[in-house]
């Protein structure tokens, strides 16, 4: 029973991972850029919401209505000022520049807020700990369920956006062939900026849920980046529904690992990551079939 509960918690945790991985996967799928500042930006969002809640009494979900558009603007700026330039500098520049950016963000946060851990949980009342008890030993946290629901809605929403709107198609086309896309009247620069804006809006949402479900400190970005990365890769980098699957696999592995040892949580996650990587790289076809079965077939 405890085992089943852990698996369930792991699945729900996967919902959070899907949220945080969505933006990273989206940016990678569209622009081929791995944004190493991704985690730090989620933490920045969490701090922004914290400030709104702590200093102005704005409840986090309402605060998101301000922070998400703000982060979208940040995404626009990030693309125009940093990512666009660094894409021209070759393969190294985007990695190096976004890593530099993450260091700047982390340390500015430390400068502004100090080393104390914060949380948004106090500002969402009962939601942070309420749960539905299915049996004595199995419970579903309301926040965790909400997170999973939001993840599904968000991933679905982005998928619909990409498939049904003109700009969504433009984004997919630009991802596939950025050179030809101008010839059909698509402004590739603007498309990429919009994609970055969307990606960062999702990062803001992820940051909100990070703050609500756990504590965060200025240097929490690194861990979030690694989890987002692992979830993306497990699910098949660039595929949105695969990201959900990857998040779930990661969450379940971690939850089961926690049963063994407190550090087992993290260790199991990393091992699961390497196991999937290994399988995909070396078992070739079999790995492909596993990935497709897990949902990576629907590519954006």
């Amino acid at each position: 029973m405890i085992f089943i509960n852990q698996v369930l918690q792991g699945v729900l945790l996967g919902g959070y991972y899907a949220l945080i991985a969505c933006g990273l996967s989206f940016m990678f799928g569209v622009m081929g850029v791995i944004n190493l500042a991704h985690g730090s930006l989620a933490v920045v969002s969490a701090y922004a919401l914290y400030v709104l809640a702590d200093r102005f009494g704005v409840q986090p979900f309402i605060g998101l209505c301000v922070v998400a558009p703000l982060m979208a603007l940040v995404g626009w700026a990030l693309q125009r000022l940093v990512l666009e330039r660094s894409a021209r500098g070759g393969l190294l520049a985007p990695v190096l520049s976004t890593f530099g950016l993450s260091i700047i963000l982390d340390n500015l946060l430390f400068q502004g807020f100090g080393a104390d851990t914060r949380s948004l949980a106090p500002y969402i009342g009962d939601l942070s700990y309420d749960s539905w008890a299915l049996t004595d030993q199995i419970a579903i946290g309301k926040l965790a369920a909400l997170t999973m629901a939001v993840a599904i809605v968000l991933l679905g929403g982005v998928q619909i956006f990409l498939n049904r709107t003109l700009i969504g198609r433009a984004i997919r086309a630009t991802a596939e062939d950025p050179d030809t896309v101008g010839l059909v009247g698509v402004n590739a620069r603007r498309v990429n900026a919009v994609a970055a804006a969307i990606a960062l809006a999702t990062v803001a949402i992820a940051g909100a849920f990070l703050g609500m479900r756990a504590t965060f400190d200025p240097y929490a970005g690194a861990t979030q980046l690694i989890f987002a990365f692992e979830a993306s890769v497990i699910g098949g980098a660039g595929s949105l529904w695969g990201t959900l699957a990857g998040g779930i696999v990661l969450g379940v592995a971690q939850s089961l690992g926690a049963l063994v040892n407190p550090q087992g949580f993290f260790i199991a996650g990393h091992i699961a990551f390497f196991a999937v990587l290994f399988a995909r790289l070396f078992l070739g076809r079999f790995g492909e079939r596993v990935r497709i079965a897990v949902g990576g077939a629907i590519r954006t």
Partner: protein
Amino acid sequence: MSASKAAVERWTPESRIAIGAAAVVLVVLAIGPSIFSANAVDKLTTLFIYVILALMWNALVGFCGLVSIGQQAFFGLGAYAAIRLANSGVGVYPSLFLGALIVGALSWPLSIVMLRLKGGEFAIGMWVVAELAHLIVNLDTLVRGETGTSLIELDAYSSASRRALTYWCALAAMTGLLAIVFRLLRSPLGAAIQAIRDNDEAAESVGVRVVSAKRLVFTLAAFGAAMGGALWVATALTFQPKAYFSPLWTAYMIFMALVGGLGTFEGAILGAVIFFAIDTWFGAMGVWYLVGLGATALIFALLFPRGFWGWFEDRTSLRLLPIGYRLRLPSLNRATADRRPDT
């Protein structure tokens, strides 16, 4: 005399002078502990470690085009290996080298998996390796979790001899690695590596064994980083996993490589010296120092990817090291057509 025909040469007058000067510097450094103050010896030891780290990261990134945010894995493992070996009875100073060798050897099979990843995936993948290494090391009761432990076997030495021995080890390691990389660059493998950096498919098509060249550089870089870690624990004495496995080490390496000049031998040394100076002057400033480091890395990555040495090389045709080939045409005074790759 009849006009000379075109000739291919490796050594130039500048590079002869440079190598000569380097040899003199080396001799002076070798007798360092007897002529420099204790403080200077300590500082130089730190500088040597920085040079090692810069050189190794530069080799990996600059020569193979492999960006890794996880070299701290080997840095930490090298320190840990040294502690474990010393603890089990191996002499302290041999432990440093042996530990690094073991970590280097372990990185060879690791490269088989990791080198299958490309670009950003490789970069973060290596970070995951570092995190995993950190977690596993923490499980060792000797290390006592994040509290850490220290290289207590060093207590057997007086502080003066400890300082000198560590200094010489660092100097030897740095010189050795510089020599290895220099030799590598001058060899056919060196050309292969640079070809890989420019375009690996093209390199493969002309017969370059891309995978084994990359694997070699990966392993060397791991060994070097491990050596750096082992030497660091010999100077710092304490080993807290969190400090050794921190991605901040990669941040330092990135800074040194970018500012000095990615992909250039001299750039690694220059970058280490600059970083050392900045660390000495601003290190006490806490987070603003780190913000500055990040900002510098960002600016250099975007605007000056070739770093100071690259900028210098572009402005002059000075090549201090006899790497690459120069074509001397009879009708011209200066040699032309240098084979230096662009970043």
